């Protein structure tokens, strides 16, 4: 069954090719069926592969499928080979599963769009790339997927290319990702330099067999560089700025790429390289700190945003921060677990948001919504599920995963990580419910024209919503403390470092001084935090609708700062973008190139030409003059001949 793994990649690729080459001439339905079918089949194969993997003993759950030698040069060798292990299985299931739902949803959502086939072509290509990313067995092949998902993200963000903001956002996404890729590429090279191989198995076994002491400089550099790539792809400080802008793309794209799958590539990558990361405490600290900082930072921006998708975008960044926090403290399983639950509920939220937007004919500003609860009930209900899930109310999925991260942060990390996480959790609950309240409750601020067209989304959009709502509800039980299925499943990947040892029942023994009561206390605390957030939102947006305005007036500066996202984009522009452009134009092009280099080349030519015009004046046309030159030459020659020893 495992041999089928290549098919997982093949189906989306076929879908891409068919839709890309012939999509224009096919009926829209056909295009949609092909695209969904491709992903659906891929999902089915993924399940088969998963089953195949389960049949193997836990320690032997590693299967590699060699396709062909991709690049070979000297000792450098990169195979086109796929690797199936628990981690990648989790990923392919999530990607193809959530992906399938979003494909289905898109059929309805994009139905009226002119670039229908193009859309599905890109979407399929994306799924292919993401699957390649998670299935690859070496760093370079992973890098292909890594970049290819970036490309698809670029294409899909800029899907409505006629909008200037969309194409700008697309370019920004690609370029910022490239900055991260810069690190990634260097990381890969450094890996090759240190390990003489870029195969996961070889690198990790070399690393885990004690050839490198903890804190090894090279390993630290490798991990830092790889993490740089992760900050780009997973939108962490300082490279997160592209993600909010990426909301210019169609909403299902935001759901799939910028919430559920692609942005988690960084987390996946770090989880994949956990062996290396564990060897570098410094990097781990960096990862955790950046994760924590991002979680808080993005959440704080999310507090005041008014665009429904932007709120979700910042929420995504914040949640990704959590995942990195988890990885950073060594709780990779927690990170991956959160990755998975997040995929469910964030996809759900985005799709819900899409449904809202769809209903409101494209309106995205939550200040112009309100009281939609009764108009689009299915959307509302599912959205509510998602909101609760992300806010961390038990027993929804988000609760388990987030709680686990906070617990780990506290246990393995320190109090600061935990408190930052907790504050971010508070914020999360607050802004998510603020979003919910402003959209679905209170008075309607929808204008009349839009109101007339208000309608619930068609079945092919609501069904995925319901499915995802279901997953958001039950997904958490995979990692329920004490009987964590996902811990067990992933433990071969994360080896001795898995948190299975400390989670659940074994926790007490491992971290004795905290006592066995700690996890439960944590659960209570985090639930309390979530409820506090919700309460706050309720107070501000349902009970006292004029309170936000007062607060805004009161803390004008902070509000403005948050509303403008700490001016980070502007700072980046002023620090990097504009000076680069200015230097390029004024100094490099017009100065160095035109003036100095070209100028000196032409200057030499002009000099010779000028010299020519001067020297030709010697040719006066007077015979006596010429005779004079001869005499001068004569004296010169004679003197040189006779005395020139």
């Amino acid at each position: 069954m495992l041999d089928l793994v290549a098919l997982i990649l093949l189906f989306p690729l076929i879908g891409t090719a068919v839709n890309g080459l012939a999509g224009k001439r096919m009926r829209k339905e056909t295009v949609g069926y092909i695209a969904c079918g491709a992903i659906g089949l891929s999902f089915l194969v993924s399940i088969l592969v998963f089953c195949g993997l389960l049949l193997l003993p836990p320690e032997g759950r590693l299967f590699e499928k060699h396709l062909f030698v991709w690049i070979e040069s000297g000792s450098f060798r990169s195979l086109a080979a796929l690797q199936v292990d628990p981690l990648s299985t989790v990923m392919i299931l999530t990607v193809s599963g959530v992906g399938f739902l979003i494909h289905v949803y898109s059929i309805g959502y994009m139905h009226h769009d002119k670039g229908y086939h193009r859309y599905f072509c890109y979407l399929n290509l994306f799924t292919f790339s993401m699957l390649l990313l998670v299935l690859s067995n070496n760093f370079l092949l992973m890098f292909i997927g890594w970049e290819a998902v970036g490309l698809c993200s670029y294409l899909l963000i800029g899907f409505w290319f006629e909008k200037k903001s969309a194409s700008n956002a697309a370019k920004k996404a690609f370029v910022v990702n490239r900055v991260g890729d810069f690190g990634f590429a260097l990381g890969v090279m450094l890996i090759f330099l240190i390990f003489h191989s870029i195969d996961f198995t070889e690198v990790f076994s070399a690393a885990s067999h004690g050839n490198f002491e903890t804190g090894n400089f090279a390993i630290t550099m490798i991990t830092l560089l790889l993490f740089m790539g992760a900050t780009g792809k997973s939108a962490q400080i300082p490279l997160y700025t592209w993600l909010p802008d990426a909301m210019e793309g169609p909403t299902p794209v935001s759901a799939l790429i910028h919430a559920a799958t692609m942005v988690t590539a960084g987390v996946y990558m770090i989880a994949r390289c956990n062996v290396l990361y564990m060897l570098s405490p410094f990097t781990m600290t960096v990862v955790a700190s950046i994760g924590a900082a991002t979680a808080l930072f993005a959440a704080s921006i999310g507090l005041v945003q008014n665009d429904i998708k932007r709120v979700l975008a910042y929420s995504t960044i914040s949640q990704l921060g959590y995942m990195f926090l988890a990885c950073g403290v060594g709780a990779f399983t927690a990170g991956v677990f959160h990755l998975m639950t997040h995929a469910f509920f964030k996809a759900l939220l985005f799709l819900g948001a899409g449904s809202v937007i769809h209903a409101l004919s494209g309106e995205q500003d939550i200040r112009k919504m309100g009281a939609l609860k009764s108009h689009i009930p299915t959307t509302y209900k599912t959205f509510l599920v998602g909101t609760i899930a992300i806010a961390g109310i038990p027993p929804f999925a988000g609760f388990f995963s987030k709680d686990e991260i906070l617990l780990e942060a506290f246990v393995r990390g320190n109090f600061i990580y935990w408190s930052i996480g907790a504050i971010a959790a508070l914020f999360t609950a607050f802004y998510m419910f603020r979003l919910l309240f402003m959209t679905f409750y209170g008075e309607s601020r929808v204008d009349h024209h839009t109101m007339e067209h208000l309608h619930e989304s068609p079945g092919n959009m609501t069904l995925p919503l319901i499915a995802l709502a279901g997953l958001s509800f039950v997904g958490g039980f995979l990692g329920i403390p004490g009987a964590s299925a996902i811990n067990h499943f992933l433990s071969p990947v994360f080896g001795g470092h898995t948190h299975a040892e400390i989670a659940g029942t074994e926790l007490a023994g491992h971290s004795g001084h905290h006592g066995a009561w700690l996890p439960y206390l944590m659960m209570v605390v985090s639930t309390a935090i979530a409820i506090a957030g919700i309460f706050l939102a309720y107070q501000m947006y349902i009970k006292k609708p004029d309170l936000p305005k007062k607060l805004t007036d009161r803390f004008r500066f902070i509000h403005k700062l948050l509303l403008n996202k700490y001016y980070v984009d502007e700072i980046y522009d002023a620090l990097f973008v504009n000076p680069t452009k200015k230097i390029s134009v004024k100094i490099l092009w017009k100065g160095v190139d035109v003036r100095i280099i070209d100028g000196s080349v032409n200057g030499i030519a002009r000099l010779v030409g000028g010299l020519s015009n001067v020297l030709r004046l010697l040719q006066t046309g007077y015979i006596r003059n010429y005779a004079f030159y001869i005499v001068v030459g004569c004296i010169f020659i004679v003197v040189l001949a006779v005395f020139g020893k």
Partner: protein
Amino acid sequence: MITITHYLVLSAILFTVGVIGVLIRRNAIIIFMCIELMLNAVNLSFVACAHYLNSMQGQLFVFFTMTVAAAEAAVGLAIIVAVFRNKETVNIDDINIMKW
């Protein structure tokens, strides 16, 4: 005692005078005459050397030089005449169409 050096110095003087004449005169014919003067200076040097070397080659050379001078004179004067026909002058400073 008159040595070869005397003759050669005299020859040098004549040659130099001829050169200076070429450089400062403007009448084409006079310039030509100055050139003839230079040739004469050379002839003197040839004959003097021949004498002191007990050699005949110098004298022979002078004979040829004179023949050449005659030929040159014929051609040169013809050229000057041709120029004069067209330009009504033999001042070489006026004969200056082509330059630079």
